[in-house]
């Protein structure tokens, strides 16, 4: 059986996500070991499809971005842009026959904010159903 631990997640996140400071990042890395690669970015609007694609090509079974809540981006429209870029990435994945769900976006919620660790766990749950990515070099 595939355990969550065997999959690798590339997780990009806006630094405004609750509990996503340096210490939280280290704690999460300790908990998940090689299964998680964390990429803090100043704003989710910095994300480009090339980042997600390279992660999926090189090491990740899934690549996600967490943004701040709708309307709460410090730079006004970063999360809105990130959404479009994830859409573009999904389109490329489906064009090459890879499940588009391997790229994803989690938009934070103003009403029920979640921490980086909570969201990471939810994503792992989601991707564990997909299993290892066929686009990665096996072995």
């Amino acid at each position, binding site marked *: 059986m595939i355990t969550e631990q065997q999959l690798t997640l590339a997780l990009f996140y806006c630094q405004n996500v609750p509990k996503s400071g340096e210490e939280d990042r280290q704690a999460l890395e300790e908990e998940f070991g090689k299964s998680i690669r964390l990429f803090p970015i100043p704003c989710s609007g910095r994300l*480009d*499809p*090339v980042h997600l*694609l*390279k992660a*999926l*090509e090189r090491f990740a079974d899934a690549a996600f971005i967490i943004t701040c809540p709708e309307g709460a981006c410090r730079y006004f429209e970063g999360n809105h842009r990130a959404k479009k870029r994830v859409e573009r990435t999904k389109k*490329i994945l489906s*064009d*090459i*026959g*890879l499940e588009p769900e391997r790229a994803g976006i989690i938009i934070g919620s103003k009403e029920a904010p979640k921490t980086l660790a909570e969201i990471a766990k939810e994503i792992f749950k989601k991707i564990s159903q997909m299993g290892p990515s*066929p*686009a*990665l*070099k096996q072995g």
Partner: protein
Amino acid sequence: MITAEQKPIDEIRGMIAPYKRILVLGCASCVAECAAGGEKETAMLASALRMAARMEKQEVEIEEKTIDRQCVNEFIVLLDDIIDKYDAILSLGCGAGVQAVGDMFPEIPIIPALNTEFLGETKSQGLWVENCLGCGDCMLYYFGGVCPLARCSKQLFNGPCGGSVNGKCEINPDLDCAWQLIIDRLSTFGALDRLEEVYPPKDWSKKQGSGPRKIIREDQQR
């Protein structure tokens, strides 16, 4: 600049299928500006093609490189040292770039990854519009700096056609009526009298009258 869009990945994969060592070649000029063939887009396409190949267990080597300009020999020669490794080049240059690289390395098959579209302007982020047909005899002076060949749906030289509504084109209401723009502009600088002239139909001989065009400038030559 010259605008272009990437071809569908399926079409590209079909064309590169026979080859085993492919150079995906970007161009950092016009097609980078229109987000079709610059360094980033080249990296994305190469990455997608490598993943696709891996999923189908194909043994192919796909590498990427971007040069400043694919349509100028001084930049293309920079590939001299590496080109022998490859058995095909997948170019993200415009049609002119693809052919220039092909001319420099005639023994290696070259494949276009883009559909080259038009001479355009970056209107806003993510929006490019066609505004010159490269007719070879520019008449923008007479039309207040707005080209009726490229921007009027009917290519009228003696407009407007009478169908424009609220400044929009009757053929396509998404477009500004070029003739409304021409008249507004000429009025602004008090030059409406330029339209008193009746302009004869466009003389296309300067565009395609005698086969492929060429510009020769002796002062620029060696």
